[in-house]
């Protein structure tokens, strides 16, 4: 085992993507090396965090999985260029904004969360979307609603395979019950 263990090796170790003998050698090393054990713990923390994450821009399968795990979500169907007031009920974990649009032919979707005066609060380049369902899903957690101002605009920038771009804006006022 070459110490310190390379990051890629730690990821492969943590994801059980190594031959058993190699994994066992790393295991033995981790019990003797504080530095590598600490580095592995950091990789583990990320991995275990991802295990529970609901992506802020999600797909239907992510939402279904979260529901199956007991996460309480409230879904709002929203159309572009209309202002919506949405309420996160007490006891719910997420508001999911199903942003409707025509995603046929869309190659990439970049998504921004802005204040009404245009300041960018968060950006999600190359975000996932469901072209067949004609929607991008934004999962807005209670934490986000504490981080961001209640009134926000979500701007979708779509680029098709020819490079043509178009945008759609959703203005959403968030309220906590």
């Amino acid at each position, binding site marked *: 085992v070459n110490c310190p263990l390379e990051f890629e090796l730690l990821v492969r170790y943590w*994801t059980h993507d190594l031959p058993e003998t190699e994994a066992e050698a790393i*295991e*033995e090393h981790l*019990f003797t090396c504080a530095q590598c054990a600490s580095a592995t713990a950091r990789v*583990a923390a990320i991995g*275990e965090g*991802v295990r529970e994450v609901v*992506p802020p821009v999600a797909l239907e399968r992510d939402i279904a*999985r979260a529901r199956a795990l007991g996460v309480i979500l409230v879904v709002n169907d929203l159309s572009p260029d209309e202002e919506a007031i949405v309420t996160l009920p007490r006891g719910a974990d997420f508001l999911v904004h199903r942003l409707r649009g025509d995603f046929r032919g869309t190659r990439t979707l970049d998504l921004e969360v802005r204040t009404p005066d245009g300041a960018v609060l968060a950006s999600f*380049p190359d975000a996932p979307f469901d072209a067949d369902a004609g929607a991008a899903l934004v999962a807005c957690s209670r934490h986000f609603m504490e981080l961001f101002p209640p009134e926000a605009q979500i701007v979708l920038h779509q680029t098709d395979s020819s490079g043509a771009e178009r945008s759609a804006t959703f203005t959403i006022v968030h309220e906590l019950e």
Partner: protein
Amino acid sequence: MDGPRNAGLPSRKESTTHAPTHTCCGCSMRQWSTPDLRRSPLRMLCSALAPRIRLYALRHLRDESAAADITQEALITIVERAREGRIENPDHVDRFALGVCRNLVARVRRGEVRTRRFESAARMLTEEVLPPAFTRLDAARLALCFGQLRARDQRVLLLTFQEDFGADDIATELSMSPGNVRVVRHRAMSALQRCVEGAPP
């Protein structure tokens, strides 16, 4: 785990004449038999081993409460064996600890139920050094950082950690090569770690 008693290990009477140093924590083991375990080098030993034991158990069992139980159980076993002078090579107590962990995890997988009477001083000691619950990242920050990854990179990580897909399965699902999946996966993990541990997203 129940290895033979080792004549080379310091007995209680001999313990002041032989003081090997642990490779894992650097402490002397000469006070293994100190009546008050909370003041002994055993505490240092357990403090050094506990996070590694928990990490090992979490990787194998994917369950934090099971990992915490294994940590407690392993530390008690190590303390008891140490006090009894039954660790074969005290210079490599870390290897002994790994052996204990492997044994315990195998027993958990076989569904064996443990019904042990813990020696109270050992339990007190091990409870003191148990690491806090596994490092919890700020969920909102992690989500925001996660959202900044490319859609394909997000999918690779979600399939890896939420679906427990291996590289070959992910490659099939996303029409990539397994080698490419591994590259994407570790780069995405690295980017996520930098974002989570670094400046706000």
